[in-house]
């Protein structure tokens, strides 16, 4: 009863009549009315929505609440909502948001304006014993502001709950109903035609096990193309680094699918697009590298001793300059005829329906059989190459294993819809642990090399140069120590991955199923 109650007013109840009716029994005083602007925020990939969180401003305050709940989790004073979580003022809200949103930009989803009229219900001492808010909500910015919801809020006052209980009874008698299951954000999204949760870079491709392999592969590639096209337009606005990142992953996955799902398309088509997508991938290599270094700026600085922290600054200044050059290059390259033609040709190729008369060896195979074969083969390959590393410790071989594992991961994700979800999740969890180990190792190698390269090429004025080089040297040392630790963990991580139970698990999931199908 302590919580605020929300009644739906959309049934045509008028504020004046309700107040008049209540005034026969209670002393009611109008306190104020005003308009408030509410703006709702989320990231492009709906990270807050996926966690059932709603972030919105009302006046100069920023609030966080659970979806479908009215009670607030956090709220702070704020004039302008920062685009990135790292720019939020220190505090609990930032601590809560940062792990969820990470490096993604907050985007204004919708702006509403709500007209609030506040009435106080008074007792004989003229003490407020309950409050009534009438709230009418419109879509802002629309030329013809349309009312999308109207509510009457009953706010009880502590120690005077009887009044609120009686008022609730009265309101229900006059035909009002409590609104429990509507969230303003969902209503606004419906009106504006936005679909919360509609974009995710995760692969969730519905496949039918009996589909011919050619058709299934095209379904996967069409899904990836959609991600490419969605992000490609947003890269230019440069709101955050993840549009480019998602774009690049989709390109890499496309290349991986073309390379690994063999003999489902004509040879020359596959070869042509492999070349084309390799070309597209290369366009943004520099930009992504620079993004990664800049995203890690704070982490790098925290690795350095205090005396050297400012000395690393010239490196990041230089990177920022280089990044804006690379960014302009990427934006231009995505508008070139060559790029546009590749995407156009690719799309029309993917839209050609499957022909039963296709001559490629695997084109007509049920996709589940083909998928099981290539996933299992790739798993064997990873095992073999990992076992060799246990005996011999060359960095180059770790790198190769990383690529093999990445290919395996992509395959499992492409075809995850064909297998029991829980089992696939378990597999991916296992694989991810190994990939994280390998990935971290590789990142550190690359960073080390990059810093050495920069030490040779960074344009420095003589006064800064020595300290900056010292700082970079210190960073390399720290990275190297980390690298050794990760390297040490490899055998344990790999042994988990290649354990007999896990091997059996792969066999059950992919080989036995296949045998059943063939017999």
């Amino acid at each position: 009863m302590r919580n605020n109650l929300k009644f739906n007013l959309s049934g045509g109840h008028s504020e004046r009549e309700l107040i008049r009716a209540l005034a026969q029994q209670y002393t009611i005083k109008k306190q104020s009315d005003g308009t408030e602007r509410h703006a709702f925020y989320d990231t492009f990939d709906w990270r807050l929505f996926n966690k059932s969180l709603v972030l919105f401003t009302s006046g100069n305050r920023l609030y966080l609440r659970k979806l479908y709940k009215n009670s607030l989790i956090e709220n702070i004073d704020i004039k302008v909502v920062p685009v990135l979580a790292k720019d939020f003022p220190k505090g609990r809200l930032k601590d809560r948001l940062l792990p969820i949103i990470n490096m993604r930009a907050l985007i204004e989803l919708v702006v509403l304006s709500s007209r609030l009229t506040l009435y106080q219900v008074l007792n004989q001492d003229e003490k407020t014993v309950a409050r009534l808010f009438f709230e009418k909500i419109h879509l802002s910015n629309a030329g013809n502001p349309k009312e999308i919801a109207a509510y009457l809020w009953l706010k009880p006052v502590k120690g005077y709950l009887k009044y609120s209980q009686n008022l609730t009874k009265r309101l229900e008698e006059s035909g009002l109903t409590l609104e429990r299951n509507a969230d303003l954000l969902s209503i606004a999204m419906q009106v504006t035609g936005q679909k919360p949760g509609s974009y995710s870079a995760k692969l969730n491709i519905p496949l039918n096990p009996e589909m011919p392999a050619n058709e299934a592969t095209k379904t996967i590639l069409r899904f990836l193309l959609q991600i490419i096209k969605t992000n490609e337009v947003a890269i230019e606005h440069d709101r955050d680094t993840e549009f480019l990142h998602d774009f690049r992953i989709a390109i890499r996955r496309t290349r991986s699918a073309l390379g690994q799902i063999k003999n489902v398309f004509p040879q020359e088509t596959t070869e042509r697009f492999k070349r084309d997508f390799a070309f597209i991938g290369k366009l943004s290599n520099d930009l992504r590298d620079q993004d990664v270094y800049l995203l890690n700026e704070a982490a790098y600085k925290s690795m350095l001793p205090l005396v050297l922290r400012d000395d690393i600054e010239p490196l990041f200044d230089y990177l920022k300059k280089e990044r804006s050059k690379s960014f302009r290059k990427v934006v231009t390259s995505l508008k070139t005829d060559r790029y546009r033609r590749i995407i156009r040709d690719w799309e029309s190729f993917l839209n050609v329906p499957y022909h039963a008369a296709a001559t490629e060896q695997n084109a007509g195979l049920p996709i589940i059989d083909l998928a099981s074969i290539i996933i299992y083969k790739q798993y064997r390959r990873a095992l073999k190459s990992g076992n060799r590393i246990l005996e011999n410790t060359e960095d180059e071989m770790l790198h190769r294993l990383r690529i093999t594992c990445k290919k395996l991961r992509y395959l499992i994700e492409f075809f995850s819809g064909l297998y029991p979800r829980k089992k696939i999740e378990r597999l991916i969890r296992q694989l991810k642990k190994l990939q994280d180990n390998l990935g971290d190792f590789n990142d550190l190698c690359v960073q080390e090399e990059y810093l050495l390269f920069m030490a040779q090429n960074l344009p420095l004025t003589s006064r800064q140069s020595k300290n900056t080089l010292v700082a970079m040297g210190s960073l390399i040392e720290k990275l190297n120590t980390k690298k050794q630790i990760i390297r040490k963990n490899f055998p344990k991580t790999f042994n988990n991955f290649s354990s007999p139970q896990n091997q059996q698990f792969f066999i059950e999931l992919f080989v036995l199923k296949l045998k059943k199908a063939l017999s």
Partner: protein
Amino acid sequence: MKTLAIYSNKGGVGKTAAAVNLSYIAAANGMKTLICDLDPQSSATYYFRVKPRIKAGVQGFLKGGKKVYKSVKGTDYENLDLLPADFSHRKLDVSFNRFKRSNNRLKKIIAPFKSEYDLIIFDCPASISTLAENILNTVDCTLVPLIPTPLSVRTHQQLLSFCNKRKFDLGRIYLFFSMVDGRKKVHHDLMTDIAGNFQGVLPVIIPYLSLIEKMGIYREPVAAFAPKSPATRAYGDLWHKLEEVLFFYS
């Protein structure tokens, strides 16, 4: 949670006016605040238009727990709740004495409020007694309004020597000047004197203003019905000084 007592062993020095306005200002600054009216005269309760009644009276109050918790009333202002006084509070002193370790009883009574409020302000009756000991034992900071007259100074010295005997931390007792009449030379002279001789004097002056007395007519804090008045400004200054004492030094 921080606790603050507005206390004086002399009556009519502006305790309640200070307690009511400080609690209002603290709440308006976003702090979840509870004002506890311990004075059987129940003036603070009256200012907030609440009936002076506690569930099960003084016995209920001393037992603590649910009965006290349920007696709390929301005021007309956001973030500000009130634990009303009850006429039976006149017996608080005698009743405290019945408990073993009676000096810690108040601490127990307010324990359930710890998680809910950022600040609890006690409006205390004028006396040196078991209740006063309880209060001095419980709170982070005691704020004494002092009218700059010789009699007030004498009463304050009594309080300090009482605290000394009972080994209370004098460093947690703060003073401010209350009901100051700017036209009186004696007020000016004594203020300089006091500031030199006593510890913990906050450099804030609450003038003698009829607007503050009008609180009894409007039944609202000055800060609510005359937000731009000099009285409100003075209480605002007092709050800022207290904020430093309560939240930055401790």
